[in-house]
């Protein structure tokens, strides 16, 4: 909004309410007044942040629970997946929190989050993967893509995200894990290529992350389930 600064021109000031006293006309007073405004704004924002931080985190967690249930079917596990959370540090992907699904103590799937760089910022993608490295399901948790163009990655707006279930690193091969415009097998959207490209890339990186850490995850799961 700094574009408006050229319009700061007292010659064209239309205000005629005559309220300005001598004191208020000194330049320092304007600075002080503006500083007070900034202070008040900062105070209000801090207060609202303090009040809303807890509920917003709760809502985020509820969304995560709901999403976990979408990428890992309830039938294949009998544990509360959020209890089996562990953090795996990977050279490429960094620290990743992995939620483990188990039935009778045996791992039946994992779910974790990957981040892709979309057109409007980070796109958070949740992946569910079975022990053999096949995708159980994928959902987009949060994004800031353009409404009407890039938001077809949401399940609510398009079936596109369902097309990943059942795929793995070898199906399709490395050349297929791209949008069609780049020679791969996934549809882009009219007017939006960057967004699906970012999602496809995030999923592919997630599968690679699982392949790299599969043994770690499985052995850790065994100790975790005891």
């Amino acid at each position, binding site marked *: 909004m700094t574009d408006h600064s050229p319009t700061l021109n007292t010659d064209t000031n239309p205000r005629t309410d005559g309220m300005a006293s001598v004191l208020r006309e000194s330049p320092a007073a304007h600075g002080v007044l503006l500083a007070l405004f900034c202070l008040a704004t900062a105070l209000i924002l801090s207060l609202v942040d303090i009040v809303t931080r807890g509920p917003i985190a709760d809502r985020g967690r509820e969304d995560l629970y709901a999403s976990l249930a979408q990428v890992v079917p309830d039938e294949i596990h009998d544990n509360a997946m959020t209890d089996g959370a562990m953090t795996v540090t990977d050279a490429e992907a960094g620290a990743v929190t992995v939620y483990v699904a188990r039935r009778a103590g045996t791992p039946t799937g994992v779910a974790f989050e990957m981040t892709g760089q979309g057109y409007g910022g980070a796109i958070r993608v949740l992946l569910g993967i079975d022990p053999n490295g096949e995708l159980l399901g994928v959902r987009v948790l949060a994004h800031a893509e353009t409404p009407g163009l890039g*938001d077809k990655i949401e399940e609510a707006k398009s079936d596109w995200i369902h097309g990943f279930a059942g795929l793995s690193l070898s199906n399709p091969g490395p050349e297929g894990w791209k949008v069609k415009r780049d020679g791969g097998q996934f549809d882009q959207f009219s007017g939006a290529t960057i967004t699906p490209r970012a999602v496809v890339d995030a999923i592919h990186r997630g599968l690679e992350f699982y392949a790299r850490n599969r043994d770690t995850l499985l052995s850790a799961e065994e100790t975790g389930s005891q």
Partner: protein
Amino acid sequence: MTQDYVSIARNGIWDNNVVFGQLLALCPLLAVTGTATNGLGMGLASLVVLVLSGVVVSLLRQAITPEIRIPAFVLIIACIVTVVDMSMNAWLHDLHKQLGLFIPLIVTNCAILGRAEAFASRQKVLPAAFDGLMMGVGFTAALVVLGATREVLGSGTLFANAPLLLGEHFGFLEVSVIPEYSGFLLLVLPPGGFIMLGILLALKAMIDARQGNKPRGAESEPTHSRIFTAAGVLQPSTEGDGAA
């Protein structure tokens, strides 16, 4: 300076309509009016912020000196948008999931600053709030009309995904106007927004000319409309070109 409410309403909805009268807010306008539903969401969110900023600016109008008014208004508007965003995320989470994308875009809407400057800063609270409401209604109407035209001609649907925004009761709004339509991409993309906006502006000018009105409500607040129009068009934006 006191305007009666009828003329405030007429001004906000038709004569000095944010989009078709003042040519403001083109950045969020072109970015989101690919569908009627998105236009409606953006319009309603902007309406709330317009009313709130009108009230706050009007309450503080004696405290804000002319020299610092622009930064003060920007602060107030940014603060309101952020507070609305955070509160909705915390307590109206489902609605926020639908409108969430639009709320940060409101900050790029110079029409809100324009109304604070041209109206709310010189009026009592009630007229200022009413002006915000009417400007918001006018803006929403413009967004829905533009969005609907682009959606029908560009995608062959109308109010697609409306139940997501308004709830299941509004499922009837969602219609496929042209079945088996392969789409006309140009109209969905921002250039199509400009083209359609131009056509609608011409239509409004025709209607005004036929009724013998002065075009664009130019008799009121001419200087400020022009200043903010320039700022609005030039506004660089990360969301503006929408090539997501």
